Every structure is written in C-alpha cells, then in structure tokens.
C-alpha cells in the first residue's frame, strides 16, 4: 500500500510543473538571513530567484552578488542566463568576479549557492567527470568556482532540481569540491548537514519517507517523525509570482544537467 501511495504521489508531483519550483525557491529563500552577502554563479536560476525573493520577504539588507559584478541589482526582467547583463539593472556599483572570489577567500562571503551532478552524504560534489578524470565516460561542465568557494564561503547551500540515486550517491566518481555545506534543497526535501553528514531536516508536503529513501543512494534517517517543510504561504507565493512572472524558477526542471 505504501509503495502504491508513493508511486501515485510521485506521479502527481511530476505532472505539476509549478509546485516543485515554488517549493524549492521558497525553501531556498528561507535559508537566507537579512544582512548576509550571498553569491550565485553561472547556470543558477533558482538561487537567483530565491535570493531576490528573500530580499523582498525578510532580508531587505541582504547583499546580492553574482558574476556580473553588479551589487544589489534590481533586475526588471529575470534572465534565463544568470550571467546576463540584465542582472546589472539598478546596480549602483560594479566589482569584478575576481573581487567576489577574493571576498570569499578572506572569509567575508556569507553564502555561496552551488550544485553537483553527484552529491554524497557529506555534501561533497562532483561536477567534473563520470569515470576516469583523464579519459572520462562522461565529461561534465566542470565545477566553476566551487573548489575555491566551498571551503572559503562561510556556508554553502546546494540545490538540485532532481532527486534520484544517480545524483545522491554513496561514492562520488570525482570530488570537485568539499567544504562548508549547510543545506541541500531538492524537489523532495531539505537536507541539513549535521556532524558532517546530510540528514533529512524536513520532507516537502506530499513526500513520504519511502520516496526520499528510494531516491537517495546513501542511507538516510527518515521516518514518521521527520518534520514536514511548511508549505509556501500566500505572501511567499504572491511575492514569487510578482518577482518571477516568466517562471524562470521552473526553467531548470526541463533540463537534466544541474
């Protein structure tokens, strides 16, 4: 019975393209504190939306940083590329990517958003290869700044728009980056890293413990006592709709690459 229920719910979740992006954007936004310096890199639509959403909801003094070097920009239209010149709109100062890496290096970047094609139980990521590094079966895009940022940012939040055992693995093919991961957000749950290991902090509404256990390649402690992620409030959903009318937050769900 449990399996049938899980299957039915999972099918339901897959056929509703709006629910998961909103759930993830809101969950990511709630992890950001007012006044923090927050950075995202290339190919990061959900972190872009989540950061701007947090500014509108509870973190008006958050300092929004990205590769364009624009500081606290207020884009009129959210771009599909997260290095787009549209992200300069409203910026009153401009720094360089070098300046932003330097900021992290001296311990002054509070949050970096990163992702992994593979993620292991300690929150380490692989963005490099499947197979051998020199002659891979699959050459992946590369970790961008993650190997430098993950150990030096005060904390790293990972996100991934798919949650399956090929992504959340017991053993990485290659460790692209390791460091101060605090949370991982997926369409199924919120992981928090405690004592060096990812633990399920909460299940998103409609997700069962079995679904997360089946979808995760490493052992997870999850059960009836695991809390449910509070669903997005009307205020959060209204702010998200106003911020992202073009549903850029849903754009990653059409792609397999993280």
């Amino acid at each position, binding site marked *: 019975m449990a399996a049938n229920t899980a299957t039915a719910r999972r099918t339901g979740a897959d056929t509703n393209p709006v629910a998961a992006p909103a759930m993830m954007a809101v969950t990511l936004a709630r992890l950001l504190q007012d006044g923090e310096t927050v950075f995202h890199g290339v190919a990061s639509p959900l972190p872009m939306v989540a950061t701007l959403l947090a500014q509108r909801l509870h973190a008006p003094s958050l300092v929004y940083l990205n590769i364009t070097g624009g500081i606290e920009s207020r884009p009129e239209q959210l771009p599909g590329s*997260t*290095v787009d010149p549209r992200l300069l709109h409203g910026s009153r100062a401009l720094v360089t990517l070098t300046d932003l890496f330097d900021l992290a*290096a001296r311990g002054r970047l509070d949050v970096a958003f990163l992702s992994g094609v593979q993620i292991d139980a300690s929150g380490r990521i692989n963005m490099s290869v499947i197979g051998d590094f020199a002659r891979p079966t699959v050459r992946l895009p590369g970790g961008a700044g993650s190997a*430098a940022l993950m*150990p030096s940012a005060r904390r790293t939040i990972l996100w991934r728009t798919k949650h399956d055992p090929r992504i959340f693995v017991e053993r990485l093919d290659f460790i692209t980056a390791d460091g101060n991961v605090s949370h991982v957000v997926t369409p199924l749950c919120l992981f928090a890293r405690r004592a060096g290991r990812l633990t399920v902090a909460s299940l998103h509404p409609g997700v069962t413990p079995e679904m997360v256990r089946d979808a995760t390649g490493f052992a997870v402690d999850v059960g009836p006592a695991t809390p449910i992620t509070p669903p997005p409030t009307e205020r959060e959903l209204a702010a998200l709709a106003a911020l992202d009318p073009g549903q850029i937050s849903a754009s990653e769900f059409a792609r397999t690459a993280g």
Partner: protein
Amino acid sequence: MTEKTRSLAEAIAEIADGSRLAIGGNTLHRGPGAAVHEIVRQGKVRLEIVKTAGAYDVDLLCAAGCATAVAAGFVGFETPFGMAPNYRRAVEQGRVEAKEHACYTVIAGLRAAIQGVPFMPIAGMTGSDLPAARGFQTLADPYTQQAVVVIPALIPDVAIIHVHEADRQGNARIIGTRFEDVLMVQAARHVIVTTEQIVDGADFEASPESIAIAGFMVDAVVEAPHGAWPFSCARRYDYDAAYLTAYLAAATDEATLQQFIAEHLLAVPAALIEA
C-alpha cells in the same frame, strides 16, 4: 603613435598554431564571436583555450578541430540551452584535454603572469581532487608553516577580447561587466581587440577612468560591428537564442555538425555572417 588597426583576417593570421589563447567574455556574454569564427575559417590547430566559463566559443573550437586543450572552470551553455556537446564529445574521445580549473585558479594563474611571479597561492581547494588531478602543488607557508595551494602562472600567447568602443591605438571602453578581459590583456604576450566601432581617441579624454584597456598593451584593433554575435553585448544586443538552438540541434551528430559549420561559418563571407 602606432597605428594598430587590422582587418579581422590579418589579426587572426598572426595567431600561430599551438598557441595558448585566452578568450574574453563569460558563458553567453561578450565573447569575441567574429574572431572565433575567423579562427575556424583559417583552420588553426592545437590551440589551448583559456577561459573562466566558456560556452559556444569553446564548443565550436572543439567541434572544428582547432582546440586540443581547454583550461576552464566551466564549459556549458547555461540553463536556456544545457551542456556543451562538442566539448564533451571531444574530451570523451581523447581529441581534447580538459584542463579543468576552478574559475579562481584561472584568475590566480593570470595574476601570477601579470605580476611576473611563477605561481600564486590561493585560499580554498581543500578536500578537492582537482589539485591532484591537475598537478596543482601545495606548499608550506614559510612564515606559519600552514599548507597553501599554489597555481602556476598562466601566460596566454594571445588574448582576444570584444569591446564596445576602441580607438586606433587600442584604448578600449567596455560597457557593463568586464569579466576577466582586463586580466587576460595584462597577462598575454599578444593582444587582439575587436570592437563594435572604432572611435576618435580624443573622445576618451573626458573620462579616461572609464576606459578599461590601455592601448599600449594592445597589438591589434579590429573593427567588427556586431562582433560578439552570437554572444550578447551589454546594452547593444542579446545573445542569439535562435542561432544557438540551431547550432546545438546540428551538434547532435558529427555529419550534420560539419555541414552546419560549412554552411554557416566557412562558405559565407565574414561581413555577411556578422551583419
């Protein structure tokens, strides 16, 4: 003052096969598209591409057989388009070496080159397999004995960047984000600047602090209107989503890809392609 204007073909002809080539811009934005296409037309080979985050430029140079190594932190077309299929295929088939960097290690290597020192210490990199895989060494800080990763100087033989305005001596204005372009210009042995338009350098005298590139570091200036295409050029034009989609559709198969390159890039005069 030295006159540095060249035709695109003349400027690219000066790039030797086997060069280490730094390419300005980032992912879909302000790459020197016209120059990259001319490199393909001239059939350069054995290039090592240097870039923090590349997309169409790196992918095409792999597809056309021009590149045999890529030193970059990320190669992909971002969320609107996905993976870089030719880069991926070329590396998997052993035709191109992926010299993967963290973007900050590309910057560190360029900074070492700029400062005339053999290597640059950087923060981070702990726990990553990249230093071992790429041969980045760890040294003990001679003052505190703490371990630090050091990145060797990365000296490009040639840097190519695309700018909004340049004068005939190579002084150049970039509107919006400069990415790693200024570092590349300072680090490289030979610098090619392509520009939307060549302007009278006297126009720059009112605000020289807004000029990104000092002309004495530049070797060749090429007027190339729309010369970032199919990349975006801030406040001038967006990236060409339709073209990039067509390119990636053709890239699913080696035969259709080579036909696409022949039809779109080789058979057509540069002036028509970039117009």
